[in-house]
């Protein structure tokens, strides 16, 4: 079965990982800009990263016949630095027309500070001004519940924002309902220890249905599994879920969301008409 990896930090992964993902059915990877594990020292460092995401990674993915799309931002872990954020925000627009850029992300909150909220709002405003999709990171562990609530409250105050053009990621049992009820897309992150297992993700699908729900590995420089989405597919089959439901979660929902960018395509599969019909129905 084909699948779309909605959230993977491939700059931290090897070319072998691309190959393994392709062999497991991955046809596209969506890569948000993120924290490198240490703070970048200047806006120039971000520009180098944006070039890596828009020039180098698409070529590396293409070697495994994987379509690579990306999201640009200054990430939540560095959002406290308002001066750096302002400088990076000035430099993002010149990259937005690049063919694999589908939106602004992953933006959001880390420890839910006033500066982080201001940086989040600046990014959302940039996305609205430039008609970009938005990918939102929600905080980790004890900060997730408060951070998700505050994020939604802020988004709902932004004039002109359409919820179906925003994916609020890293949802868990205590946050998924508030995200879906507000009309946003969401994502379950199959990441060891700090996020959700395949079994818990499937539990949430069973409790909340299949609409506007996506899954991803969020594989990065930490302990993580690039083929976590196929592992979720196995978990769904283990419980007797239909192939149609599995396909909706791992392929159709991310496809519907990404098609809104106007840039997402999978020409190698020869299913452009089918993709457009899914887009038209949403």
């Amino acid at each position, binding site marked *: 079965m084909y699948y779309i990896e909605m959230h993977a930090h491939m700059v931290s992964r090897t070319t072998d990982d691309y190959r393994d993902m392709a062999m497991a059915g991955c046809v596209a990877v969506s890569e948000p800009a993120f924290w490198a594990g240490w703070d970048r020292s200047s806006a120039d460092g971000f520009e180098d990263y944006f070039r890596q995401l828009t020039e180098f990674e698409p070529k590396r993915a293409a070697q495994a016949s994987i379509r690579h799309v990306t999201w640009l931002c200054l990430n939540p872990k560095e959002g406290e630095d308002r001066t750096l954020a302002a400088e990076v925000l000035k430099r993002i627009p010149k990259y937005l027309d690049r063919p694999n850029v589908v939106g602004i992300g992953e933006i959001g909150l880390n420890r839910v500070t006033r500066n982080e909220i201001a940086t989040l709002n600046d990014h959302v405003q940039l996305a609205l001004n430039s008609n970009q999709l938005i990918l939102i990171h929600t905080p980790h562990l004890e900060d997730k519940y408060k951070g998700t609530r505050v994020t939604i409250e802020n988004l709902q105050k932004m004039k002109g924002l359409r919820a179906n053009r925003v994916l609020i990621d890293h949802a868990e049992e205590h946050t998924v309902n508030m995200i879906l009820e507000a009309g946003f897309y969401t994502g379950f992150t199959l990441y060891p220890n700090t996020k959700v297992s395949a079994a818990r993700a499937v539990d949430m699908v069973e409790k909340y249905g299949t609409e506007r729900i996506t899954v991803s590995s969020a594989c990065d420089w930490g302990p993580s599994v690039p083929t976590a989405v196929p592992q979720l597919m196995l978990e769904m089959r283990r*419980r007797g879920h239909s192939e149609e439901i599995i396909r909706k979660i791992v392929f159709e929902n991310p496809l519907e969301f990404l098609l809104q960018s106007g840039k997402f395509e999978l020409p190698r599969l020869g299913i452009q008409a089918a993709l457009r019909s899914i887009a038209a129905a949403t």
Partner: protein
Amino acid sequence: MTKGTCPLTTGQIIDEYFIENRTRLLELAAFLERLDRSADGVDATNDFRMAAFRRALQMIASNAPDKMDQVQLLFSDPTTEPREQLDTKSASGAWNPASEVA
């Protein structure tokens, strides 16, 4: 509670998942016993993370129909006001009430 949404029967769920969850339970018991054997013998119950952990164990053993959500909330920051400034980059896994004291 959304009864009937898992395609497996009760018996099938037990057959499929009992062994791996028995293993998880033993890991929990081993972790708690390890704390009792610590080199310094400090009482772990004074740690805010372990206090939340104990409350979560009680919730798991309860009959609450939404125990998963409740366990998540037991570890979560219940406050609503943003922090004035960044205290640390990383979360610790449980909300520390002492961290909210200015």
